[in-house]
């Protein structure tokens, strides 16, 4: 999903504010620390978001897109192994 800005939408933009959930704060912190450690930068974050399938992009919230991109980029760089996150989630 690339260059979404300026498209016509079927519904108005939701401008309401909402409290950030704990996981959203953690995703923000995660991206900040990955950047500071030189693991991935903001341009890679954006590219990872743009690589999402259109349908998944539209369905996802702001930080869900960030999280999707982090997984994409870290897999690409070999920081995460394929299946590693799923296995971790299953074992808790």
């Amino acid at each position, binding site marked *: 999903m690339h260059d979404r800005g300026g498209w016509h939408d079927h519904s108005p933009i939701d401008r309401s504010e909402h409290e950030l959930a704990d996981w959203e704060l953690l995703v923000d912190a995660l991206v900040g620390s990955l950047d500071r450690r030189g693991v991935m930068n903001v*341009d890679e974050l954006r590219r990872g978001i743009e690589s999402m399938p259109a349908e998944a992009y539209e369905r996802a919230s702001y930080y869900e897109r960030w999280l999707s991109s982090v997984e994409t980029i870290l897999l690409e760089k070999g920081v995460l192994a394929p299946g590693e996150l799923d296995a971790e989630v299953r074992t808790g």
Partner: protein
Amino acid sequence: MTYAPGDRVRVSARSHQGHHRTPGYLKGRTGRVERVRGSFTDPETSAYGGDGRPERRLYLVGFAQTELWPGYPGAATDRLLADVFEHWLEPA
């Protein structure tokens, strides 16, 4: 080619495969340089593991909203301000 505040510039209409920060709705449109932001790493390479060098000069460019959006309902003096890299600009 470098630009100074007040210069008329056109955003290149070329397409670009891959990550770039030039919004599609500005491509081919003419605006005016408002400010020189400075030089920054190039997202078109730093999004793919490169170091983003050489740095590219970035400009704040102002566009008339009425020229961007057909039937724009706001004031004729409304402007849209966007950061555009030098290699996406042409003299107008």
